[in-house]
């Protein structure tokens, strides 16, 4: 397998684009990534598009706007992990020597559903019985609070931190800071979550251009190395499971660190899947940033804030930057790549050399999560 580098990234800022088509939400991110990479349209040998709810041929619909057609375009659905899973497919194809240059995008338009909780698969037994994503995470939170003494104030602190970072990101959906009181007194969604404990619904796109390390040098003097690329599915369990331990992330993190030849202490910056406040705390532990039960302390000590030991979600994360499902994976990658290139301005993690992205996708019965993708990048 060959070394692979990221040579360009682009984002369509996450927002509500009710009057735009999926294609028109998607192409600006793709164009920005191509321009950032400095590649010609004809240099792109294959494209992979992640979208959870975009409908048929999302990738082709976006790419035709830019006249990039005729190449192999593959559409990939893996819920919230759609574009991170697409990234892995592109990575494998370049690493294997099938292509030298490939494009990955994620695109989503959730405003077409009119708001409310994310529409889930109606064939699923628990979904037919009223399971919604905030309730699933709410139950994780309730159990964690009971087992580890987490308080509602500590939980709300995750949202405060997310918005503090997001306020520094011009591409975030929410760029306002929030207070603990505002988080705790917002309207109830699924207890213990108020609205500000939940990522917003929205639209957006993100794109990444990758190349073999050898080819990358033709285009850029600042390639970002893909140190590992990993996707797992959850394990189906009909019996009891510990909802305070996201097993798929624990398993994936172990594989990712082994593949990259590093440990959690070597990570300088991470973008993790904070769809709800509790998720970020669970992932501190699952990714090895702290021991089990110590996540709230890690947050309170400022270790995961900008300036701390391991800043998590400097972009604002899903809670503040937004979460157009399929677009999130490559948006996380775009953020980490920019961090490693030192381009993040007020939210820059000083001296970041190693970055991690983590994206899970759930919403079906019997799984902790249906999918989880972890990537590690380095310069």
């Amino acid at each position: 397998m060959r070394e692979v580098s990221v040579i360009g990234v682009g984002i369509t800022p996450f927002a509500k684009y009710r009057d735009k088509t999926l294609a028109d939400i998607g192409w600006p991110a793709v164009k920005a990534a191509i321009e950032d990479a400095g590649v010609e349209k004809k240099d792109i040998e294959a494209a992979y598009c992640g979208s959870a709810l975009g409908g048929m041929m999302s990738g082709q619909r976006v790419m035709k706007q830019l006249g990039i057609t005729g190449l192999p375009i593959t559409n990939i659905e893996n819920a919230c992990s759609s574009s991170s899973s697409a990234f892995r497919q592109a990575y494998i194809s370049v690493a294997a020597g099938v292509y030298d240059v490939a494009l990955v995008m994620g695109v989503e338009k959730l405003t077409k559903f009119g708001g409310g909780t994310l529409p889930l698969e109606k064939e699923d037994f628990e979904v037919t019985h009223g399971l919604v994503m905030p309730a699933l995470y709410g139950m994780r939170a309730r159990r964690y609070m009971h087992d580890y003494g987490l308080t509602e104030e500590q939980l709300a602190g995750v949202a405060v931190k997310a918005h503090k970072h997001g306020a520094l990101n011009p591409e975030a959906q929410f760029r306002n800071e929030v207070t603990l009181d505002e988080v705790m007194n917002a309207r109830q969604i699924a207890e213990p979550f108020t609205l500000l404990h939940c990522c917003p619904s929205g639209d957006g796109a993100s794109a990444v251009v990758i190349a073999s390390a050898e080819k990358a040098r033709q285009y850029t003097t600042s390639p970002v190395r893909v140190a590992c690329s990993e996707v797992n599915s959850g394990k189906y369990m009909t019996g009891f499971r510990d909802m305070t331990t996201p097993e798929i992330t624990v398993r994936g993190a172990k594989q990712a660190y082994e593949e990259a030849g590093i440990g959690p202490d070597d990570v300088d910056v991470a973008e993790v899947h904070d769809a709800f406040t509790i998720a970020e705390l669970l992932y501190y532990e699952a990714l090895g940033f702290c021991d089990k039960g110590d996540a709230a302390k890690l947050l309170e000590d400022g270790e995961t804030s900008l300036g701390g030991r391991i800043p998590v979600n400097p972009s604002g994360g899903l809670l503040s930057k937004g979460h157009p499902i399929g677009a999130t994976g490559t948006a996380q990658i775009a953020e980490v790549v920019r961090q490693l290139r030192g381009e993040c301005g007020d939210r820059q993690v000083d001296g970041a050399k190693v970055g991690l992205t983590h994206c899970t996708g759930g919403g079906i019965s019997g799984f902790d999560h249906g999918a989880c993708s972890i990537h590690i990048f380095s310069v």
Partner: protein
Amino acid sequence: MAQTAEHTEAHVLLAGESVRNESDGSVRLVGGRCDDCGTLFFPSAHVCPECMSEAVAAADLANDGTLYSWSVVHVAPRGWNTPYIAGYVDLSDGIRVFAHVTGTDASLLEMDMAVSLTTAILGDDDGVPVESYAFTPVKG
């Protein structure tokens, strides 16, 4: 708050073959048990997720368990009676079931408390009551 189900009028029955009505008005959850490897699972399926055997027979599940966790849901798709309590119940035979928790105020719930099977009206489908199984705290 969901009400106790009335069996005298038309209902949309959510759980279908996963619930059996007994002659005394009570209900049983019905899962699947693999005839070949003995794995018990819920809801049932036409193939065993452990050994892929298609010899799966209906199996009554325990009607008592403990509340693993819960969330009071205020925002849900149209049709559900909100707020409702969503929970995971760990049955005494080792199966975890997602269920609405009814017949109680959420403030009275406790982690790992004993709950038992019941039925409830959980919402409506264009005016027709939607009924399914639910769990309620064991009194006393």
